[in-house]
């Protein structure tokens, strides 16, 4: 009987963890470490691990994004593998926007984690009109891909750290040769 109660309790906590990680709270998805501990108890890490195993069956995984102090670490659910380019178009992304984001993120990573916003804008304006560039950068900041300080310097935002494999991005860029013809 006691064992049955424990199983029910774990199931309940698993459901709670899934709700916390999958549904948006306020404006951003996921939950902080301290929120999970408060809601799930001391063994929250075990519950998250069990949830990750369940999500694996769906092609998803739990990812932890560092935010300075460990209590503020953000737990989110992401794809386990990258989507295909065709799939992404059905997510509402334009190829132009993805290329602008790739260019911006790679520039920031290659320059050691920060770059002046004006510099990024100048680079992007070589291939896209100014109004598109401005609107894209604003949107990337709002979405959390970029972070901007009061001097207009751009850094990687929480979403870029959660979603983008920086090492793979640079390796892919350098491993790619321009197609002839």
């Amino acid at each position: 009987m006691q064992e049955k109660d424990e199983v029910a309790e774990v199931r309940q906590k698993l459901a709670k963890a899934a709700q916390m990680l999958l549904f948006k709270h306020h404006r951003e998805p996921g939950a902080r470490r301290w929120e999970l501990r408060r809601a799930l108890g001391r063994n929250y890490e075990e519950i998250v691990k069990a949830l990750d195993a369940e999500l694996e069956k769906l092609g998803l995984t739990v990812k932890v994004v560092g935010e300075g102090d460990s209590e503020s670490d953000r737990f989110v659910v992401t794809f386990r593998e990258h989507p295909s380019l065709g799939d992404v178009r059905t997510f509402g992304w334009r190829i132009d926007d993805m290329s602008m984001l790739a260019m911006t993120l790679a520039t920031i990573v290659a320059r050691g984690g920060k770059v002046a916003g004006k510099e990024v804008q100048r680079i992007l304006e070589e291939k896209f009109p100014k109004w598109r560039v401005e609107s894209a950068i604003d949107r990337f900041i709002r979405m959390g891909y970029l972070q901007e300080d009061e001097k207009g310097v751009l850094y990687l935002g929480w979403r870029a750290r959660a979603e983008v494999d920086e090492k793979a991005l640079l390796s892919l860029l350098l491993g790619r040769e321009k197609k002839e013809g």
Partner: protein
Amino acid sequence: MTQRERRELIERIIDLCESVRSRGLDPFDVQVRELLDRLRELFPELKRLEDLYLDLRAVSGLADVVVHQSEWLKHRSSILYLDPLLVMLKMQVMEPAELADVFVRCWRPVVEMESITPSAIRMGLDYWTELPPLSERGLEIGVAETRTGRISEEELREMGIVSEEEFSRLMEEEWKRMLREVGREGISYWKWVCAKTFEETVRRSWILSFLISYGYVDVEVKPLEEEIVIRPREKPVQPGETRSLVIPVTYEEWRRHAGKGRGG
């Protein structure tokens, strides 16, 4: 060296250190040892309190540069380090579609869902209960309150009125058409926007407002002739000092100008 020259030199050092911090200048471009030697030479000649304060800021700035050099070295020695110039050159020769493909291969999007909560439903019900009927809110005598407001491109996209792709296409088409049909001579605002229907007129004026805001079209207001002339630019320019120009596109105004426009 005069006092003024000494001060200028120290201020230049402070600016240089600031550039490393705020503009991402390569910290190894700063010759820290050489600059410290210069400050050391100048120090005995500094008598005024303000000069000593500047010297302090310069030394502190150079210390900050050394911290940045240390971080830079750590980054370069990490597995992530690749020459930025090499990365930039690679990206320059890639097509947008290729860049997008690279991005997708290293991207694992966050899964997020939205849902209304029971407490939000309760709040909605409470609001409904407390909201007086229209008849009690002073609207029964047929006075409708109309407020002007701004609607952004993004809001329109969210409302499904226009997609971003569609919007870009509309803007480019309209700009090119204006270049082709009007040229540098320009055309009266109303002559350009006025169409056979009021809806089409509003649409044209809306697109034109974005072309003006983004510097694709120049506007000249002629107060004596009571005319507004628009001229397409060959290349968009970055607006310097911005100003607002309100042109109400009302049904009455459209009726007044109808027949004088370019139609279509």
